[in-house]
């Protein structure tokens, strides 16, 4: 990758994510008949939090502080593996999809460990639910990646996008539409959105992701919120590349990506504003169902002969 392309990738990865989160919140507010917070509100929140001191939970160890740090670092490095403005990614390689999924797991591992470090039963409850949802999301995520990668004969994302049919892919290849549906479910699950989790809930007993980060404050909370935005942005980038032709490299690619990201964020907002959250015991079935859908897709690939 050329230096300007890397710079553009870094700028997109570091600066755009809170905006995407802002769009999702805005659309949700519109659907509820409210005006909603300004689009740039997430940036203001981060600036405010970064300027504050923090609070250490009594009896916690360094793991408590490491949770937000490792969580953010993991999604940022994952963002270096995913092509953003078309073309390649700075750290992309043949096999990057595996590292991508493992990095998401690493972030989750430390977020859950930090939650358990507080010794609070609320946080323990959140970590337990997150562990379950994470475990059930994993097969779906990998099956989608297989669905994307098998036709390209490479476990690298850049190669997979290069091998994708030109134009609006899913019209030529309906399995891409199936992959997109499953990937959208994975996106909702990984980012703790409705119908799996509700980022706006105010009752600790019903929280999953939120309750794990209850005791973080100041810069630590900023890292958590920023990490969530980056995670949404990075997984949405996968979805955008899957459905839309993103011209490789340069400003055209960046514009296409941002347009696609905005559309995905809008879709997340629409889901949040119009669908009720699933009951907790129903979530595993929902996630496994999505994985089964992707498995059917993979089976169809094989049934049609060579993938």
């Amino acid at each position, binding site marked *: 990758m050329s230096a300007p392309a890397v710079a553009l990738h870094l700028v997109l990865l570091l600066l755009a994510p809170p905006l995407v989160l802002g769009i999702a919140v805005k659309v949700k507010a519109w659907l509820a008949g409210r005006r909603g917070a300004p689009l740039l509100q997430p940036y203001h929140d981060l600036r405010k939090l970064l300027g504050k001191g923090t609070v250490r939970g009594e009896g916690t160890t360094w793991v408590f502080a490491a949770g937000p740090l490792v969580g953010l*670092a993991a999604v940022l490095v994952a963002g270096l593996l995913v092509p953003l403005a078309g073309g390649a990614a700075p750290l992309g390689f043949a096999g990057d999809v595996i590292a991508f999924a493992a990095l998401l797991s690493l972030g989750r591992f430390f977020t859950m460990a930090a939650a358990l470090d507080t*010794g609070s039963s609320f946080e323990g409850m959140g970590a337990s639910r997150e562990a379950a949802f994470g475990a059930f*999301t994993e097969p779906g995520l990998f099956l989608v990646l297989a669905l994307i990668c098998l036709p390209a004969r490479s476990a690298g994302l850049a190669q997979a996008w290069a091998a994708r049919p030109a134009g609006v892919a899913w019209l030529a290849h309906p399995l891409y539409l199936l992959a997109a549906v499953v990937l959208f479910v994975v996106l909702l699950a990984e980012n703790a959105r409705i119908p799996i989790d509700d980022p706006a809930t105010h009752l600790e007993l019903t929280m999953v992701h939120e309750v794990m980060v209850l005791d973080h404050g100041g810069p630590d909370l900023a890292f958590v919120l920023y990490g969530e935005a980056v995670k949404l942005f990075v997984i949405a980038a996968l979805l955008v590349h899957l459905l839309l032709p993103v011209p490789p490299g340069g400003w055209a690619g960046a514009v296409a990506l941002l347009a696609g990201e905005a559309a995905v964020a809008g879709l997340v907002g629409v889901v949040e504003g119009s669908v009720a959250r699933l009951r907790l015991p129903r979530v595993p079935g929902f996630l496994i169902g999505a994985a089964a859908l992707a498995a059917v897709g993979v089976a169809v690939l094989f049934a049609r002969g060579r993938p």
Partner: protein
Amino acid sequence: MNLQLVLVALGVLAAGGFAALVAGRRGRLALALGTAGAVAGSALGLVAAGAQLASGGAVAARAGWRPPLGSLTVGLDPLSSFFLVAVFLVAALAAVYGAGYLRAHLEAGGRRIGAAVAAFNLLVAAMAGVVIARDGVLFLAAWEVMTIASWVLVTFEDEHESVQRAGLIYLVASQLGVVALFLLFALLRRGAPGFEFAQLAAAGPPAPGLAAVCFGLALVGFGAKAGFWPLHVWLPDAHPAAPSHVSALMSGVMIKMGIYGLLRTLLLLGPPPVWWGALVVGIGAVSGLAGVLYALAQHDLKRLLAYHSIENVGIIALGVGIGLLGQSRGDAMVAFLGYAGALLHVLNHGLFKGLLFQGAGAVLQATGVRALDALGGLARRMPVTALAFLAGSVAIAGLPPLNGFVSEWLIFAGAFRGGAALAGGAGLAAAAVVPALALIGGLAVACFVKVYGVVFLGTPRTGAPGRAREVGAAMRVPMVLAAALCLLLGVLPVVAVGVVAPAAREVAGLAAAPAGLGGSLAAVTAVGAALVAVVALLVLVRAGLLRRRPAPAAPVWACGYVGVTPRMQYTAASFAEPVLAPFGPLMHRTVHALRPATFFPAAASYEEHVGDVAGERLLAPAARRVLGVFARLRILQQGRIQLYLAYVLITLLVLLTWQIGLAGR
């Protein structure tokens, strides 16, 4: 030269063990002598095996004296050298740790230390013997010595009834497995002048039907040792029963002898058909999934780790399956990725499972408690153990930047490539590895967050962990070393793959490692380095932001409730509940709950027992049926001397007729 050095190393191990046995009642002396022998022998063997591995060649030697049936033929090829490296590395760490661990046992007035130390050294030597044996009879002899030495160690604390029971089940399971191995070698021998592997290989691969039978026998015989589902039932009882450094050795390397035996047999069986690979993939997926699910359901730290060994053997089997699939379709890259991933996972699991069992031993020694739900908050009282255990947890969960990720990456890469490149059912079987390994990995993350969180984080749930003290240096150093090696192999996959490449090539039958992997391995290094760098950067940013700003400690949020006690923390059982709930039908859970009743509940309790479906639904009924058949045979046994004399007469008559018939021909 290297082979001779390995033999000298075995001699040093045996001498140390013998000296410990002689020193007997003088516990400290016995421990020192035995440990010195184990460490020196393992170090020497490690150097010799490493040098042989680096040279990449194969050597063999035969002693002049021939025991009945077999010959004393030993050899070193890349596969043997690699397994020797794993054995000696884990053994050296375990021996140092054992010196510290058993000292506490001595101080508590423990006995029979000499026998335990001698058996440890004998176990290490026997494993090395299994790996270097080049003769079927010698192999089986070393195999049996290995089983017996480990049985002595498993029953070390035989004052507990559960330990006696575990020892008995272990011995029976091992011997049942060996029956299959005897049959296997008898079948392989057909057409060869002797049991030497070179002779067996020279006789050519068996016919497809016979090869399939041999393959099945190897799966049963070696699978019983490795812990393939459903032959694993002895493992969760035996491994936790042993002292922790022995658990580390047994889980870390001894069960891998089953993998070694399987691979060695595959070298004799000729080109594999597709269904072998698919079958091994299936076994791996079931073992991996069953192992991790039962691990999640455990309440005992060491038992949980033992179930994870079944999971990891399953992952290794997935790799072997990919290798077989690639081999059957002649795809060098897929075969190499599968075998390399499996072999690297052998080494990796030896390191991190050894580390985790040692950590569990440290917790056990510091608190006297194995029940997860009685622990908690140990990270502050045992910081070094906690850090090492965290490294082991991240590694076993297959997360970057530690070594577990590299081996799982290789297996995943083989599965992706196999799914895309292999034709027909082989491709589908390879692709099936992807979701299986993903689910196993996701559940392993859940399980190790649970273990680490419940044992080391939060606040102590009972008095015992609250009084714990960090363990001694002899126990800390091996754990830290193992953690460092996990990190090293994780960030330098080029080194890790370099260690396994010669053995993987040998098993896959490739003249050279397929090109095109180097770039990806360098990229994995880059990912690990980027991760470390970004974390370091964020630590600096955080420190900069918080300079001159308050960071006070405050009670954690409890919705305003002030009567919080440590017992209100989430327990291991409650943590695992939502993960296990969807798998309900697959688990054999019995719950005894006394639910709180009335408006002012006085007593409530909850007790849960998870039985092993393989043991209770599959093997126990099968055993009952077999016993039923045998019970019917009891009709022969009437207790009347006349009847027995009649049996003798009938037998003689039959033999006589047979002999006459033979002579008449």
